[in-house]
């Protein structure tokens, strides 16, 4: 399968989903359209000509082919004959596109004095310009565009029901709205893989099921006979982690228990950092732990001392874990630091849920004070504050910035919460039983909802990213491709030391002073490698190593050291005094000579 065909498939689904009352999608203008139209017009004019002359009499349809041929021939001849290209050179790249791929500021060459450096910098700047413009130009290859649900006049989009949508759209898209009635092992947590192809369900009362939700093909189903707090896919659909009552367990896609990680107990929430291969867990005992899935080692265990940790989210940009606390604070954590990177007071009541957008720029929190707040993570400042009548749990951000908030048994989806002040939801849906987990499916216009009565897959037009990176997360990949990807991903694994608030820091020169670095080194090594060695008197024979003698020798050395120190201080003081004298001489009075 080529990339193109996959993309086409994606586009189909997208178009199909967005049928209901949607803006008519205008196909993007293609460069060949213009020429085609022209040629058509030409055809018509030429088609008329013979009629007038009376050479041929027939239907237009019959006549059409002939003029086309002649026209084409003419065209070619004209072009080759040296007529000027009306659009010489490469097609211009729009400035916004260029800006999108701009990476930081350019070096100012005018300030560079070193000639060799200037040359090398000009070369590298030229190369980076090329890279930027090419990236912008190749953006043309992502032709898919997302649409949104749009109601008739005076019609609220949130009143449109799922049934109506699924009836209106084509069968494949309509099939994406479905309910799984699983009332027995009630409320469900869920997780989609990064490709959006597979779904993992974990019922509170021990029911675990994973499936390919497109084809509704069940991979495995079992009951772990224990309370389940959370479930999470690992890097691929081959493995998943389940936070059970006591320990953390890892199963494969057939339901075989691979590991029972007994270092991780009472886990409440799970997060998987895909590029670091880290599974972050937060426990009821207040521990935040990181498990390196690629080597099976615990990377860090941090005692947060902030009580029960049942609100957890990750920042996809810098892999920082965000935890919410009953004191209304949100804390940011990295495995490298035992204290929070940032502690932020967000709500007056406890924090109930956190969601972070794809770019890692905005954070949405909801609290017990029934507020929904939007924060800018870069500036750590609040942007918007909404007050919801019933509060919100289970926040989730879609790839294109839709926000789902659940309250009791209702699910509401908001559009553009960050930029503008929203007054009403974009979509709403009611499920049976209170909602326990909700997540947008990547690359699909679908919101998965786990609730007391099973699972509901809800169609939310415009939620998923229409263009996917085939090398990063490909929804249509085969097993072979997955294996290839796995190897590459492991080779490109990012080390946990690099997790921090600013990932760009790695590309900067470390400006720490020598002292600071030395101190860190001492801390790391546990001793000071540059420290002066303690004097140890040599063993001497014939009674010269008697304890008194040894002590005497030690003292001798110590005195010498001290003498040196004293000499230095005295010299420094003398110099100071000299300076003082020099300054003071001008202001001396006659009576100063009697001073002692």
């Amino acid at each position, binding site marked *: 399968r080529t990339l193109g065909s996959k993309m086409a498939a994606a586009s189909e689904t997208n178009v199909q989903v967005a049928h209901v009352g949607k803006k008519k999608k205008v196909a993007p203008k293609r460069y060949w359209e213009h020429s085609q139209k022209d040629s058509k017009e030409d055809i018509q004019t030429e088609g008329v000509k013979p009629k007038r002359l009376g050479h041929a009499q027939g239907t237009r349809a019959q006549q059409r082919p002939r003029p086309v041929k002649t026209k084409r021939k003419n065209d070619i001849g004209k072009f080759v*004959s*040296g007529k000027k290209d009306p659009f010489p050179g490469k097609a211009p790249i729009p400035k916004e596109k260029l800006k999108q791929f701009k*990476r*930081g*500021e350019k*070096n100012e060459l005018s300030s560079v004095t*070193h000639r*060799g*450096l200037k*040359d090398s*910098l000009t*070369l*590298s700047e030229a190369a980076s310009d*090329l*890279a930027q413009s*090419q*990236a912008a130009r190749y953006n043309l290859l992502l032709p898919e565009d997302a649409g949104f649900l749009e109601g008739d006049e005076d019609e609220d989009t949130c009143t449109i029901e799922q049934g109506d949508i699924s009836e209106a759209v084509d069968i494949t898209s309509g099939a994406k709205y479905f309910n799984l009635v699983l009332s027995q092992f009630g409320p469900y947590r869920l997780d989609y893989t990064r490709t959006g192809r597979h779904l993992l369900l974990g019922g509170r009362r021990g029911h675990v099921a994973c499936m390919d939700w497109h084809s509704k093909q069940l991979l495995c189903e079992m009951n772990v006979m224990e309370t389940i707090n959370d479930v999470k896919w690992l890097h691929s659909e081959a493995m998943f982690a389940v936070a059970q009552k006591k320990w953390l367990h890892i199963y494969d896609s057939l339901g075989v228990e691979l590991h029972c990680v007994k270092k991780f107990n009472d886990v409440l929430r799970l997060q998987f950092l895909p590029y670091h291969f880290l599974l972050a867990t937060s426990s009821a005992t207040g521990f935040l732990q990181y498990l390196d899935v690629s080597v099976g080692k615990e990377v860090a265990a941090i005692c947060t001392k902030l009580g029960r940790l049942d609100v957890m989210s990750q920042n996809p940009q810098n892999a920082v874990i965000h935890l919410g606390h009953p*004191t209304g604070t949100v804390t940011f954590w990295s495995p*490298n630091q035992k204290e929070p*990177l*940032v502690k*932020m*007071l*967000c709500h*007056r*009541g406890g924090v109930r849920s956190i969601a972070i957008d794809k770019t890692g720029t905005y954070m949405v929190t909801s609290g*017990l*004070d029934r*507020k929904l707040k939007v924060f800018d993570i870069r500036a*750590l400042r609040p942007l*918007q*504050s*909404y007050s*919801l*009548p019933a*509060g919100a749990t289970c926040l989730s951000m879609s790839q294109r910035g839709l926000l789902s908030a659940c*309250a*009791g*048994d*209702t699910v*509401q989806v908001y559009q553009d919460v960050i930029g503008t*002040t929203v*007054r*009403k*939801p974009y979509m*709403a849906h*009611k499920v049976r039983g*209170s909602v326990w987990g909700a997540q947008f499916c990547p690359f699909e216009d679908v919101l998965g909802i786990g609730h007391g009565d099973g699972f509901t897959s809800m169609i939310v037009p415009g939620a998923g990213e229409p263009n996917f990176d085939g090398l990063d997360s490909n929804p249509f990949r085969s097993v072979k491709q997955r294996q290839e990807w796995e190897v590459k991903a492991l080779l490109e694994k990012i080390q946990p*030391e*690099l997790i*921090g608030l600013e990932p760009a820091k*790695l*590309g*900067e*020169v*470390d400006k*720490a002073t020598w002292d*600071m670095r030395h101190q*860190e080194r001492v801390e*790391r090594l546990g001793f000071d490698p540059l420290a002066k060695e303690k004097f140890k008197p040599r063993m001497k024979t014939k009674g010269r190593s008697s304890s008194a003698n040894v002590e005497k020798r030690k003292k001798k050395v110590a005195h010498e050291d001290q003498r040196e120190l004293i000499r230095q201080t005295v010299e420094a003081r003398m110099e100071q005094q000299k300076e003082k004298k020099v300054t003071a001489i001008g202001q001396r009075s006659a009576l100063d000579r009697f001073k002692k």
Partner: protein
Amino acid sequence: GAGEKISLTELLGTLKKAAPSTVPNKKQLKSLKEASKTLELPLSRQETEKIHRSVAYDKTSADVSQWQSVVVQNRKAEQLVFPLNQEPAGPKPVEQVVTGWKAQTPLEQEIFNLLHKNKQPINDPVLTPVEEASLKAMSLEEAKIRRAELQKARALQSYYEAKAKRERKIKSKKYHKVLKKAKRKEILKDFEEMRKTNPAAALEELKKMEMARMEERMSLKHQNSGKWAKSKAIMAKYDHEARKAMQQQLEMNKELTEKLVVPSESEEEQEGVAEEEILPDFVNDAQTVIDPANPWMMGKLTAEPPEPEEKAAPERGAEVAVHKEKDEEEEEEEEEEEEETLLREFEQKRQYRRAEEEDLLPMPAPLGPDEAIVEEEQLEKEEEDEKEEEEEEEEEEVEEVVEAEILEFNSLIQNCLGRLTRVQTLEDLDVLGQSVSTDTDIPDKESTQAKSNSEGQPEKVGQKGGKKKKMIDLRQVLTKEAKIIKASIAPTAVEGEEGEEEQKMIIKEAFASDDVISDFLKEKKKEAQASQPKVVDLTLPGWGEWGGVGLKLSKKKIKKFRIKAAAPPPRRDQHLPNVIISEKRNASIAAHQVSQLPFPFENTTQFDRSIRMPIGHTWNTQRAVQKLTTPKVVTRLGTIIEPIDKEDFIKSKTVAATGKQPDLMLTSGDKKVEQNGKRFQRKGPQKKGNQKYGPQKKKNQQQKKSVQSKKSA
């Protein structure tokens, strides 16, 4: 005797005969001559060696400097492919491969026709006509003409320069006076002319004159007050000349300070005046306003002054922040209980101030009046609902609340909200307190402004500085922004037990809210204190003075032995009241960072920017990756890489120098060689003193030879 002549030769003859006496003289002369002809001493060994060395140095440096350009070029090159002088890879032009080939088939002929049309070269000359034309761009004749022109220009320039120099050196005052006068007249004349032809430039000129007038009026230059003028004043009584000079100076002053009256003769100027008159008054109005804060000073059409005040607020905040730090130190000694009481007080005042500030600030995204009312209604409904549900449960709790708190709340709400609604119960207060900002959306600025003015609260605020500001900020952050209450279309199902539990939780949280804030503030303060450098106390009690229980250390000693470290840089969360940012350095990432600035870079930003571009496939296109990762040096497998041949690069150099004129090469190749020869010879005379040394000569010859051999080749 008379008439006899004596010739000189005869006399000489006698001299020869009488030789015996003169012979010794001759000898002496000869010996003298020989004595003066002594050999020069040879130079000392050191000196000769020195000369040898200097010569050798010159020679080798000349030799080595020939490599300079090649080295620089190779260093600059983006990529070096070794071996260097290989034939260019890729397909060669067809013409080179098959020379005696002709187009035979019709297709070939057609293609060749096309090529002909585009003036592509087919046969022997590989260059296109355009390229050839560019090569011929400058012939020898042209170059000569141009050179002559340049020479002439240069000569003229030097001539004018000399003239100017001469004129400048003339010391005659009269001459300069006359010159100045003439110049001035000319300028005036020009100006008159310019006014007619180019009014804009004239206006500029006029401005300059105006400037000169202003300068003159400012200075005392021509006011007869200088040293010279005073001396002349003494002489003026007797000296006619002096009087005249003084008079002249005064006249000059008058002339310069005279106001320029430009007669409005031309029509254009009249039009200009008319335009000015057409402009309404308020255009100039804004400039005349002195105090932007005072709305009465402004015209009707100028904007209202909320913005400058808004700007002023943060400034005040900054000032306060400075105070705050000082205050914090004092606070250390205070007990926690005190803090809490203080907190409450501050909260009260903060509410005052907040109400004020909100009024002053421009309302973000003003709601339509209808919406606002609807929202308010909703709010009230909710409140009522809540009241009904919760009153019974909450009464007990309410009783427990300290009286002081009730008082506080009452006064607080009365101050900031009393005007809007009547407050009846504590819960109402609480709910209202939470939704202050929504209420303030309702536009009644004027009343609040009037109120605040009448109460004279700004003064009060001014008096209480410092630490309150911080908490005010915090409160602002937590509650201040405009909250939008959305009408939920899909109603929430309140499930019996869970809902009630939740409600309880919410109420608890609402009452605990203040503690949350104060706790956070305490924590933040603690953190800030921990990051402060500690004072090192080296005082030893009892040293140099009496020690014991109840005795205090002397101030002098404390001053001397307590070492204070320098203040750390300001915290990053300094201006973010609701955020604590850890100041700890991330040492783990430091291991991967560049710790020292690499060599040619001059500063860190330069380096940072130079590596800002990712080079991987994930972020770039294939071509870009190839470009970004091109190796500096490429060696071909299986080839012998020989050092650069001197012959090669010299040849390439000469070719490069003459490359632009291939026709010259063909026609006057001999001349070229001669020129080359000359060039080498020209180098020779510079080291004329060294010419007697063999190697140099030999080298010259060698070079000549090589040139000749080239020619033959």
